[in-house]
């Protein structure tokens, strides 16, 4: 036990005194979490301050078009940056491509007739929408829907005005015809068990993702220490000492596990305390602390096994660094770390099942987002432990062949 404690002390001291390792394990993921949580906040939070900029060019110059623009001005997520009455099409395109605006809305001279015409065919389009190509398709769709809804409201209002007597006879009230969206659709988030969680926010999406991502970066200090020991001859010195080498490996695993858990606590604290301080959303930990500990432990052990395997197969620190990081990035990309899995095509989503980072992320999301318990993460934990065993076994065989 004293031997194990000595080995753990040395390994932990080495990591916490290595600025590069601390940067990779703590500062880099904390920065990712802060940046991603704050920048994605508006996308995840309904009714947030996220706005799109629109230039409106009114060619109709009618009471209807003026009323429509007035309604658009009141919408929280739309900012009309410029309102003109005869801007050429080229000028609109230029303003969008130069970043002055995200959208350009042209109300054509057919706008009024489109609002008032209830009998004939739709005819010419009453609006043309210029869109910045880089705008996400979900935002494009949201803006188009919003413009359409407001147009239909205007058109319906016009219908009511034209047929006020008929509406009164039928007992239909104009103001009730278009109720508020929340009165029609009540959003509820599906959780595994327990009470329904708060609306998932950007922090809850990004903290688990970047936490899992950063945990695998333990490959860097592991390989650095391993290859330094090999190159400096400390491994040779250790082999000249009458000690069971398994203690050395066990000591390393326990040390890195402690570092991993410190990393988890730090990242969760960043999500819980630091992100809100900077105006972001508070992260929830779910309702199963044991489940959270279990999935964190399984991801930690898997990342350590990965680090040891990469160290064993690589010839030097440089090779371990590049190979280790490249594989993490590939597995992150297909595992839903960088881009949420639900926006991926079906084929890519199927591919994500081969990524240990995806198993870890799903486990964290089950606990933190879906309010799951231990029973909900057993399959992910089993996969992580199983692959850890395979990687550690392979590492042992390689080390025995190459070094021990």
């Amino acid at each position, binding site marked *: 036990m*004293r*031997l194990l404690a*000595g*080995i753990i*002390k*040395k390994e932990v*001291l*080495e990591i916490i*005194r*290595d600025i590069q390792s601390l940067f990779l394990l703590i500062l880099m993921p904390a920065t990712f979490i802060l940046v991603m949580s704050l920048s994605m906040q508006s996308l995840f939070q309904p009714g947030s301050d996220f706005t799109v900029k629109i230039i409106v060019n009114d060619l109709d110059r009618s009471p209807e078009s003026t009323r429509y623009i007035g309604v658009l001005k009141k919408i929280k997520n739309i900012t009309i940056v410029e309102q003109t009455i005869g801007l050429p099409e080229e000028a609109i395109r230029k303003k969008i491509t130069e970043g002055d605006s995200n959208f350009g809305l042209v109300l054509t001279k057919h706008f009024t007739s489109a609002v008032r015409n209830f009998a004939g065919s739709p005819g010419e389009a009453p609006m043309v929408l210029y869109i910045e190509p880089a705008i996400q398709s979900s935002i494009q769709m949201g803006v188009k829907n919003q413009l359409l809804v407001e147009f239909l409201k205007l058109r319906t209002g016009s219908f009511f005005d034209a047929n006020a007597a008929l509406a009164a006879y039928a007992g239909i009230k104009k103001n009730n015809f278009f109720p508020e969206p929340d009165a029609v659709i009540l959003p509820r988030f599906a959780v595994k068990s327990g009470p329904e969680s708060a609306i998932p926010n950007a922090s809850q999406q990004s903290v688990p993702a970047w936490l899992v991502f950063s945990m695998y970066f333990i490959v860097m200090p592991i390989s650095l220490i391993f290859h*330094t020991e090999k*190159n*400096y*001859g*400390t491994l*040779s*010195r*250790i*082999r*000249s*000492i*009458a*000690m069971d080498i398994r203690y050395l490996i066990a000591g390393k695993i326990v040390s890195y596990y402690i570092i991993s858990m410190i990393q988890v606590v730090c990242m969760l604290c960043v999500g819980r305390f630091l992100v809100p301080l900077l105006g972001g959303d508070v992260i929830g930990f779910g309702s199963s602390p044991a489940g959270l500990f279990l999935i964190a432990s399984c991801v930690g052990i898997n990342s350590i096994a990965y680090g040891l395997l990469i160290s064993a197969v690589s010839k030097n620190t440089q090779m371990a660094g590049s190979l280790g990081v490249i594989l993490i990035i590939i597995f992150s990309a297909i595992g839903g770390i960088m881009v949420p899995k639900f926006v991926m095509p079906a084929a890519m989503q199927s591919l994500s099942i081969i990524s240990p980072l995806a198993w870890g992320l799903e486990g964290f999301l089950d606990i933190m987002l879906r309010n799951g318990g231990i029973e909900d993460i057993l399959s992910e934990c089993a996969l992580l432990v199983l692959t850890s065993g395979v990687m550690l076994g392979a590492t042992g065989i390689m080390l025995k062949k190459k070094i021990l």
Partner: protein
Amino acid sequence: MIQIRKLYKSYDDVTALNAIDLDIREGSITGLLGPNGAGKTTLVSILTGVLKKNDGQVTVQGLDLDRNPDEIKAITGMVPQSLALYPLLTARENLEYFGTLYGLSGKRLRDRIAFSSEAASLQPFINRRAGKFSGGMQRRLNLAIGLLNDPKILYLDEPTVGVDAQSRRYMLDTIRRINAERCTTIVYTSHYISEIEQISDDIVILDEGSIILSGSKEDILSSRDALAIQVDSISGAVSESLSALAGVTCETGVIYVEKNDLLAQSIIRVASILRDAGATILNMHYDTNRLEELYLHLTKKELRDEE
């Protein structure tokens, strides 16, 4: 103390050690000398249990290396060629860590750290990180770690590479003191011939995996530094004539011409007298009291770049 018989080691197709036979006396300092790739480090690595041999037998204090590796390791200390320490740890933390691996704890560990750091003259810097040490201090820490388990046998593989003259002198003095005070058997490899000459009781010269010379320093190095000319027979009168020349002495069948500034002239005169006497020169060689000359003579003077 250490008996090596028919020791054989190869890496793939390259023979690193070829049928080595060697005895190392208890309490002696044995200097292992040889050019790059001679097999010095391989031999030390096998003796310390770092490498496995292919064939042969090694016994240490009657213990077989194959059957009792841990017992042998327990009485063995090693100071490897590379700096086998952790730069991010302080000297004390390095010593504590390796002491723990040696199974030391409590007062015994503290005592051994105190002894080793004192022996390596590191006590004033013991709480400084090893990475901040100068090259000489790192080498001394490397030595201190090797002394932690109070070894009966201490292997030092080129322990003074890259250190200044003062540190080198200090380390050699320390090694000699440990050998004298604790009767530690020391096996010392070095590229520095002067170090081996200075420190060793016994000298082993290795080349291309084989021992080409071994023995006590006294036996290996002649007392004289002269050209030895072996002749068939010379009369007493010739012998007297030769002995009359400055720097020339005659012993039975051998004429020694001292190696000094007059060597060339002396050789001409000796050759002239021998020719006049009709004596036949059987052999000529240098007898040297300098290890470097002997070493270069035995291992040839060509560069030994490793492939």
